[in-house]
């Protein structure tokens, strides 16, 4: 076969191979698009899209001597508020005592609260900050965009499992699935650097968080939070956090590091510990 004939023959083979492969490509695209379009916002069992503000009502706990600082309202297995100290393990007690939260004798500048160092707040503490959070549905993911610290959470709802053997992170690895109109979010892979509340309540990197997110009515949403951290707590902890829809709000910029010199001077001037 002459070289030109060879060339034309090869081109013909490539052409037919290309034509034959088109349906396969189309089929692949079709299955991909069917996979994704089945997960768009308006086809999920519920749509939490919008800007939400955390309620300061009954799901925001007050400081007590045993359990200081603004925090969650921890519930016992019967759903009643837990009284007394949190059920810490010996490891948890040690961490709790070592942490230096703000309090009557210590201001932010002398605290080792990771929040005051502008680190991400972690799960579930991010829900304690009285700033709005926007939920965005995208194919295969639900995104939580927190105004406070501009923290994001990606909740994968495409059926994948947890990342295996991953380095722990501040906000963890979250996967979700639907149970009726409730979004169930399973989070692992959290580091042990964040706290559960303003009072220095610790957790370990064994923390496993399961959240059940559902709408109470059009304007309100409840996030039911179950924590299992056998390294830090002798029993699972349960709490709830309510959010109120803010249809007219947009998220605003909040940069934790955006601190003026005057603010630093103010912190120094007003400190209690020397």
């Amino acid at each position, binding site marked *: 076969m002459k070289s030109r004939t060879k060339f034309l023959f090869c081109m013909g083979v490539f052409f037919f191979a290309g034509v034959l492969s088109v349906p396969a490509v189309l089929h692949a695209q079709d299955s991909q698009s069917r996979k994704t379009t089945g997960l768009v916002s308006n086809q999920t069992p519920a749509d939490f899209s919008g800007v939400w*503000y955390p309620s*300061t*009502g009954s799901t925001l706990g007050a400081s007590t001597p045993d359990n200081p600082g603004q925090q969650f309202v921890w519930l016992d297995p019967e759903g009643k508020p837990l009284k007394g100290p949190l059920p810490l393990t010996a490891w948890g007690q040690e961490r709790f005592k070592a942490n230096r939260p703000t309090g009557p*004798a210590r201001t*932010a500048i002398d605290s080792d609260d990771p929040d*005051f160092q502008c680190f991400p707040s972690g799960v579930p503490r991010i829900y304690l900050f009285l700033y709005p959070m926007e939920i965005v549905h995208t194919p295969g993911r639900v995104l939580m965009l927190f105004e406070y610290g501009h923290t994001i959470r990606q909740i994968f709802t495409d059926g994948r499992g947890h990342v295996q053997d991953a380095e722990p992170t501040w906000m963890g690895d979250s996967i979700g699935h639907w149970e009726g109109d409730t979004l169930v979010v399973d989070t692992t892979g959290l580091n042990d650097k964040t706290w559960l509340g*303003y009072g220095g309540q610790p957790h370990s990197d064994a923390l496993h968080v399961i959240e059940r997110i559902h709408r109470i009515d059009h304007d309100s949403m409840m996030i039911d939070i179950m924590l299992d951290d056998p390294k830090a707590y002798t029993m699972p902890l349960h709490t709830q956090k309510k959010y109120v829809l803010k249809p007219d709000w947009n998220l605003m910029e909040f940069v934790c590091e955006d601190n003026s010199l005057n603010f630093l001077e*103010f912190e120094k*001037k*007003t400190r209690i510990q020397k």
Partner: protein
Amino acid sequence: MKFNLPVCFFAVTALCVSLPIFAHHGAAEYDNTKTISLQGTVAALQYLNPHALILFTVKDDKGQATEWTAELQSPNLLSRRGWSRSTLKPGDQIIVTGHPVKNGAKAMSGQKVVFTDGRETPNMGLPPDSAK
């Protein structure tokens, strides 16, 4: 109307039992059992995160000037209640009401700010329906 320094020092009732205005944290520790109201001249409104600051000058009866600082909520929360960076301008005559810091410094929380001519500034609290 001339105010002494401090104009009033009284036990807190409503302000104390309401939700703390610094619901996440303030930079300082405030004595929530005391409320003071100070009249002064605005030097600057620092409208920056994490918390806005009012820098203002207070003169006593003898004309002695003292620099005070009042810590407010974050600009984000203030803006949603109608504040802006120009709500207070240098030279404005204001009366700031709030809790003094515990360590005795010339610093306080700003819970309410009014102008001496009677005009009021927007409420600085959390969104009104947030306790639902």
